């Protein structure tokens, strides 16, 4: 195994941020960066933290600092087609993980413009290359839904074995992905038939939009970087950093009364007594669920990266089957 080659790589292309995870020997590496693409190179000395991808020979900055103020759904350079943007983000994740090849790649993309399908994924990947114009070499590619990835995160451990203690042996469990653009659920019957129900509610950045509005109202300065602010709870404008965690919490609580309670009723539907929540806004869901005393609501550890962890575990368990 040469340097830059990993056995399993997982990339979750989210609406706000891209999460990557890889393991070659020993410890897993991970990376997380905003879903943001800009054309051209940045002429700054000491730009070691800037990662580039290359589309048709043009340099693309992946996950660089924000260029726009206020609420922006995603800063994707208009010059890039949807395929090229998706490929650049995946290549950017490889670049940040310090990898150029892998045996198994497991993917999930949640943005509606970035649809991954088995027939086109190879073509999509080939539309962007690394900064040194070499393409990323991938053996086997798997595509998963986000709630499946979360279920795998709950039911499989890091070695890829079924987790005995993590999950209840029977009953019904709801898996909830509280993302930025959509909140989705899958309800699984753990024993017996394994019956499954799926559903979703469109949130279209409701939490983020509300949080950014409230921060701008109370601080009277424009917010720079939605993904960074939501992840760190710190609003930066110029060189001044201000703690906005309580404002973001307030926005999440408001989201519960706006659509959270109705969504929870749908996701639980009298049957499920257990919920496993992941995704960036998992806290918004679990904060509301605190009043449901008869429901066992578990939030994924490091909920922002729980989906990519599930993808990674799935790659570990099922990725090598065909090799």
């Amino acid at each position, binding site marked *: 195994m040469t340097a830059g080659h990993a056995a399993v790589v997982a990339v979750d292309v989210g609406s706000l941020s891209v999460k990557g995870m890889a393991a070659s020997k020993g410890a897993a590496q991970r990376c997380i960066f905003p879903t943001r693409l800009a054309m051209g190179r940045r002429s700054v000395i000491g730009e070691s933290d800037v990662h580039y991808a290359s589309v048709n020979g043009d340099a693309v900055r992946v996950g660089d600092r924000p260029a726009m103020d206020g609420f922006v759904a995603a800063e994707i350079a208009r010059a890039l087609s949807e395929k090229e943007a998706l490929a650049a983000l995946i290549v950017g994740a490889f670049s940040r993980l310090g990898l150029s090849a892998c045996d198994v790649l*497991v993917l999930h993309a949640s943005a509606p413009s970035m649809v991954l*399908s*088995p027939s086109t*994924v*190879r073509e999509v990947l080939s539309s962007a290359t690394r900064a040194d114009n070499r393409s990323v070499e991938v053996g*086997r*590619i*798997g*595509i*998963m*839904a986000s709630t*499946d990835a979360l*279920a*795998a995160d709950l*039911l*499989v451990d890091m070695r890829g074995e*079924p*987790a*005995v203690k*993590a*999950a*209840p*042996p*029977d009953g019904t469990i709801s898996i909830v992905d509280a993302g930025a653009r959509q909140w989705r659920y899958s309800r*699984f*019957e*753990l*024993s*017996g038939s*394994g019956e*499954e129900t799926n559903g979703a509610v469109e949130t279209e950045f409701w939490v983020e939009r509300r949080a950014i509005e409230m921060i701008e109202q109370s601080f009277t300065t424009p917010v720079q970087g939605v993904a960074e602010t939501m992840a760190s709870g710190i609003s930066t404008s110029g060189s001044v950093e201000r703690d906005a965690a309580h404002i973001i919490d307030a926005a999440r609580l408001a989201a519960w009364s706006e659509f959270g309670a109705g969504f929870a009723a749908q996701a639980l539907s009298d049957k499920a007594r257990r919920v496993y929540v992941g995704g960036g806004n998992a806290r918004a869901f679990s904060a509301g669920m605190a009043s449901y005393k008869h429901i066992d609501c578990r939030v994924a550890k490091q909920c922002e990266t729980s989906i990519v962890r599930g993808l990674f575990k*799935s790659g570990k*368990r*099922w990725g090598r089957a*065909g090799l």
Partner: protein
Amino acid sequence: MVKAAASEPITVTVSPTYVGVELAEYIGSLPPALRGTEVARLAYAGYRAERASSRRRKSAVPVAGPVVVERIGRKIAWVE
């Protein structure tokens, strides 16, 4: 505690035809003073074993939803 006088003594025939060759030899090999209590102990052990219910025994821990786990695995779309 129950007094020794309160219980009626019983007689048990220990011979190869009644209890089997193996058990008869085992009882015969013991010191005479121990034979009675040993027969009683074995009888009680047998009684316990016959009445043991599967519920009281510790069952194996079922792995959480193995069906569901494999079902999720099958839903992944693989591209070779």
